[in-house]
Every structure is written in structure tokens, then in C-alpha cells.
């Protein structure tokens, strides 16, 4: 496929790896922000190809992983209602709440449906006028315009048996929280390419300047990621801290103005609790007042929710880049994708799940590198 296959070319990848090896003179810690990038790095063994001085730590950019347990329990309580059709992206179905997941709710008779696009929910609402359709609106800036459009269209079309349970998160406040932490190890970021396709990169420039940290907006294919690493390492070695774009075929400085406009109409910025990290100020979206009639949280009072997280799990530290999956005593033992204990094991894009799915608990990374 055009724009995919050529960015997976091993020969080109090796050339970039060689150039990185020629450039690096000392140890550096880079964080890829987005879970899709983490998944690509581990699946393709890119970290094993890189010189030993370069350590990649894995960021908080997996919305499925960071959706708070409180919100997941709330979703489950709504999904159990007999008058509700609960729609969600497929990734959310396996995420454990305090008591089971959406698959279990479905097996117990709950009407839980997977949707490809949020607009699919509107068709479901029209076809089921005696039910209320709730969409679990999660995601980063990339997904917000799509979710916003579903709400906007519902109002345009006069669909009233539809609402959204919003748990949107934003990347720059999370990066700021990581950089501001006294434990921070991250010296440069691979920025999230598809988030920036929507938001552009002006929001990242204050972080670059305040923390003197290079940010290189990167894509998701092996060549894209290696190019992002090379540009980051060049900046670090030359003592520069700049915003650079390694994903020019998809990302413009101003982002996508039409999408931003829709986000601003439907959502407003709010504080948000991140699973494993805690509340980060102004790090999410909720519905704007104009669209409050579509707020599932207000429509369905599910009472107070008390959550319990396993004490052994170190997902919060992994999401902040201070520890890695193999540092966790539960990894691959009590905790696996089938029975996840915490945020980073629950989605294929979580760092722990990526390590597990590609056998990192079975082989030494050094032996992978020597192959």
C-alpha cells in the first residue's frame, strides 16, 4: 500500500540506524509519546536496532490505557442498563473495571456494540427509537473531531436518544506533567504525529522553550520513527532544543483548522483524571454547555463509584517514563493481556501489552539486537 510499504523498507531503516550510530556520542533518553508509536517500536524491534546509548521510554499516549477506572466503572454501570445500547471502540471492551469488563456485561445480557466510527452510533439511535444509545467518547486530539461530529450531527438531525460519555485526554498537559516531575528522565520527545495532524504544533513550542527539550513530531511506520530518533539525537548532540517535524507529509504547523473549530464548538477544556497518573489540570475535554443535553454522565446517575487498583502495578511510573515493563514483578506473571492488572497492559498499545505480545518477557533484548 502506498505510504505504508515504503516506510517499512528494511534497507532504508538500516541506513537511518547507521546514521544514528554515527551521530550518537553518549547516552540519551527519548520518549515516544503515542501508544501507536510504542506498538510499532516493539513490534518491529526498533529499540533493539538502535545504538545502546539510546534508550526509548514509553509515554502516556494510549487513551484506552489512561481512561480512569472511575470512568470505566461508570461506563459499565450505564452499559448494564436495559434501556441502553452502549457503543464503544473495540479496544475498550477488554479493559477491566473494578468488576469485570464490557465483554462480560455483554455476555450477561447487556447491549454492548463495537463501532468503527462514532457516526455509526447515530444510525443505531435512529434504528432503535425505544432505546438510548450511549457512545463512550474516548481518545486524544486525533479522535476528538470525530466524536464531536457525532454530537453535532445528533443535534442537527434532531436525534435525542443519543448521548456521549466523554473521557477525552490531551497530550501537551501530560508532557508538561512528565517534564515537571522531579523524577523526569526524558531528554527528548518523539511527538504524536496524528494528534498534531489535528492540533498542529504551536502548543508544543512553550514546552520546548521552557524545558529546553527537543520535540520531533513523528509518524508511526518504522522509517518515520527512526527518522524522528535521528532528528532528536542530532538536536541533543548539537545542544539544540527545537520543535521539528519529521512527519511533513501529514502534519502542518497550524494543524487542521476545520477539525479544531468543531472541537471548540462541542467541547471545552477541563481537568481530567488519568489512570495510573492522577488528575492533570486542564488535560481533557468535556462537553460544552451548549451540548450538555448530550452528556451521558448527567443523564444516567449511577451513584458514587469506589475504585480499587492493584497495589503491585507500576503502570503510573511506566506512563511517566521512570520505569519500564520488565521492572515490574507482576509482568508476565500475575499480569498479562488476558488478565491485566493495570493501565499499560489493557490495550495493545500499552507498553506492557506490547512487550508481552511480542515476547519481551521470554527473550533478552540484547539477544534480539545481535540477530
Amino acid at each position, binding site marked *: *500500500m*502506498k*505510504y*505504508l510499504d*515504503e*516506510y517499512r*523498507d528494511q534497507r*532504508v531503516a538500516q*541506513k*537511518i540506524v*547507521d*546514521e544514528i550510530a*554515527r551521530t550518537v556520542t553518549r547516552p540519551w533518553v527519548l520518549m515516544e509519546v*503515542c*501508544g*501507536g508509536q510504542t506498538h510499532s517500536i516493539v513490534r518491529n524491534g526498533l529499540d533493539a536496532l538502535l545504538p545502546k546509548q539510546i534508550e526509548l521510554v514509553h509515554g502516556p*499516549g*494510549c*487513551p*484506552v490505557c489512561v481512561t480512569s477506572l472511575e470512568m470505566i466503572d461508570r461506563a459499565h454501570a450505564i452499559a448494564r442498563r436495559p434501556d441502553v445500547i452502549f457503543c464503544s*471502540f473495540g*479496544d475498550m471492551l477488554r479493559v477491566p473495571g473494578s468488576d469485570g469488563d464490557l465483554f462480560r456485561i455483554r455476555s450477561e445480557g447487556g447491549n454492548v456494540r463495537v463501532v*468503527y*466510527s*462514532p*457516526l*455509526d452510533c447515530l444510525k443505531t439511535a435512529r434504528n432503535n427509537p425505544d432505546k438510548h444509545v450511549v457512545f463512550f467518547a*474516548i*481518545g*486524544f486530539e*486525533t*479522535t476528538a*473531531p*470525530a466524536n464531536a*461530529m457525532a454530537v453535532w*450531527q445528533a443535534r*442537527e*438531525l434532531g436525534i435525542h436518544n443519543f448521548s456521549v460519555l466523554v473521557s477525552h485526554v490531551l497530550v501537551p498537559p501530560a508532557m508538561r506533567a512528565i517534564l515537571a516531575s522531579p523524577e523526569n528522565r526524558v531528554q527528548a520527545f518523539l511527538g*504524536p504525529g*496524528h*494528534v498534531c*495532524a*489535528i492540533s498542529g504544533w504551536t502548543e508544543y513550542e512553550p514546552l520546548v522553550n521552557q524545558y529546553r527539550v527537543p520535540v520531533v513530531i513523528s509518524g*508511526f511506520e518504522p*522509517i518515520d520513527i527512526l*527518522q524522528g530518533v*535521528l*532528528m532528536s539525537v*542530532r538536536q541533543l548532540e548539537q545542544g539544540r532544543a527545537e520543535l521539528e517535524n*519529521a512527519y*511533513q*507529509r*501529514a*502534519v502542518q504547523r497550524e494543524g*487542521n483548522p*476545520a*477539525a479544531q473549530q*468543531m472541537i471548540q464548538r462541542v467541547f471545552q477544556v477541563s481537568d481530567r483524571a488519568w489512570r495510573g497518573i492522577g488528575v492533570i489540570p486542564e488535560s481533557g475535554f468535556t462537553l460544552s454547555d451548549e451540548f450538555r443535553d448530550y452528556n451521558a454522565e448527567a443523564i444516567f446517575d449511577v451513584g458514587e463509584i469506589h475504585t480499587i487498583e492493584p497495589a503491585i502495578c507500576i503502570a503510573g511510573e511506566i506512563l511517566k517514563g521512570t520505569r519500564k515493563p520488565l521492572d515490574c514483578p507482576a509482568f508476565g506473571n500475575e499480569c498479562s493481556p488476558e488478565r491485566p492488572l493495570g493501565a499499560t497492559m489493557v*490495550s495493545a*498499545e500499552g507498553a506492557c501489552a506490547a512487550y508481552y505480545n511480542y515476547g519481551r518477557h521470554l527473550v533478552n533484548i540484547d539477544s534480539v539486537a545481535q540477530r
Partner: protein
Amino acid sequence: MCLAIPGRISSLHDNLGVPMARVDFGGIVREACLSYVPEARIGDYVLVHVGFAISRIDEEEAQRTYQYLAEMDQLAELEDGNEGEPAHEVP
């Protein structure tokens, strides 16, 4: 979750006032909303995320960057013996 796949627009249509397209992903064709990429035309490549085109791929930029990366080893040979800045920055 932020996965977005590049595909080629094969036709345009309207669905209840929303501009839509049929997008070909290497033989698999799906519908995508074009509201956020209104300038896209048939034959253009767009990145599609959860049924929405989020960005039109800049083909010239893609070609230029890829060419640079594919020729990186030749540039490295040219730079051997030159300890200064690389001849070309990665775009």
C-alpha cells in the same frame, strides 16, 4: 488508538449534508467523512482515523523526504572527511 491509515479517494458523495468519500485502502474500500479535509479530491491520498479523513497527504513532501532518507548512505559517504554539519538536514 490514534491509528490513521492512508487511502486513496475513489469517489465523493453526500450523506445527510455531510461530505463523504469512498476511500480505497489497497483494495479494501470504506466510507470516510471528508468534513475536515474539504479540499480533498478524487485521487488524493488522505489519512483516515475512525471513519474521518484527518489530513491530506502532501505527495511532494512525501517524495522529497523519502528520497532523502533512501539516499542517506550516499550522503554519509560524501560527508566522510567533513567533520562539520551534515550537507543536508533531514527535512
